[in-house]
């Protein structure tokens, strides 16, 4: 029995979170999150006429740092073509001080980020997307259906060495009203440090 219990616990530990499938709608789109400018912003508010880019990111992760200038440039430029964008930090800053709100403000200013960079204060938005790491990209079409998820490109280390511009190609496709040529890719990233799940109790009436 003890062995069975141990293996069951192992299986539970190995269960992966459910990630959005292609064609799924944007989850928790109406949840307000605090932007680096102090305002509350939801994904629904930044939806573009041609599509919506949601990027799970943070300040501390070296893979984010490797890609953040490219991500910023893509978000800023395609916003002008009707694709709304939002960067979301779901990490618990109690674990990584570098991911604090103040450091997000500094980072956004340094990068020249022209789209919202918001705090997922419960990490529940990341949970709803099934996001597991930073950076991780989800791109929705004009109808709000997921059409691309995964990586920015195929070379974190060297922008000049990129041979496959996955996200740029997907953004260009939906800006033109087409389906992205490649809809799922993978890249390494830092595991999201989720905030502890809070359980609200209601007193019996």
């Amino acid at each position, binding site marked *: 029995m003890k*062995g069975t219990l*141990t*293996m069951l*616990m*192992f*299986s539970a*530990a*190995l269960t*992966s979170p459910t*990630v959005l499938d292609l064609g799924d709608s944007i989850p928790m789109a109406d949840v307000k999150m605090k932007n680096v400018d102090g305002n509350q912003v939801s994904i629904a508010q930044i939806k573009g006429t041609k599509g919506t880019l949601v990027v799970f990111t943070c300040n*501390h*992760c*070296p*893979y984010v740092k*490797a890609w953040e200038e490219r991500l910023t440039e893509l978000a800023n430029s395609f916003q002008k073509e009707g694709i709304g964008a939002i960067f979301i930090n779901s990490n618990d800053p109690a*674990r*990584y001080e570098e991911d604090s709100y103040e450091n997000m403000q500094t980072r956004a200013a340094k990068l020249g980020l022209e789209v919202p960079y918001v705090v997922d204060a419960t990490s529940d938005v990341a949970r709803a997307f099934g996001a*597991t*790491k930073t950076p*991780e990209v989800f791109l929705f079409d004009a109808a709000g259906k997921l059409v691309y998820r995964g*990586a920015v490109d*195929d070379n*974190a*280390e060297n922008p000049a060495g990129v041979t496959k511009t996955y996200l740029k190609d997907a953004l260009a496709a939906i800006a033109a009203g087409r389906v992205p040529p490649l809809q799922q*890719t*993978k*890249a*390494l*990233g*830092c*595991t*999201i*440090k989720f905030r502890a799940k809070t359980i609200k109790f209601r007193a019996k009436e």
Partner: protein
Amino acid sequence: MSKHGKVVLAQAWSSLCLPCQEEFPDLMRLYREFAPHGLELVLISADLQAWREQARTFLAGQGVDFPAFSTTGSLEAFIEAFDPAWSGSLPATLVLGQNGQRRGFWPGAATYEEFRKVVEPLLGEKGPEKCPAPLAAARSA
């Protein structure tokens, strides 16, 4: 990666990844305790080229005195080969049983106790009569 007769934990990690750094002492504690009983630890650094000197320094600081590895070539291909269902979040640990078969995959960081609960039964699959005394003692503790 198969090590016949050994239980293998193969971990993909990065020296700049904070969860990886936090988890490492637990991983090494597990290795030191269970290596004499058949546990093999295969460390695969996914550090980019620019970070590899830091990775070497980190491993030395953690007392890693056995060969460790680095990814080469396409990281996408590495992710697919390590586990097709893996999103690429670091750290991640692949678990192989004594016959070389995959026995699990662990995305994200874990503690010594969480690792131990996985490793101990797999090491014990030799059968109780072959179970080394220190391991048996640990199990009953």
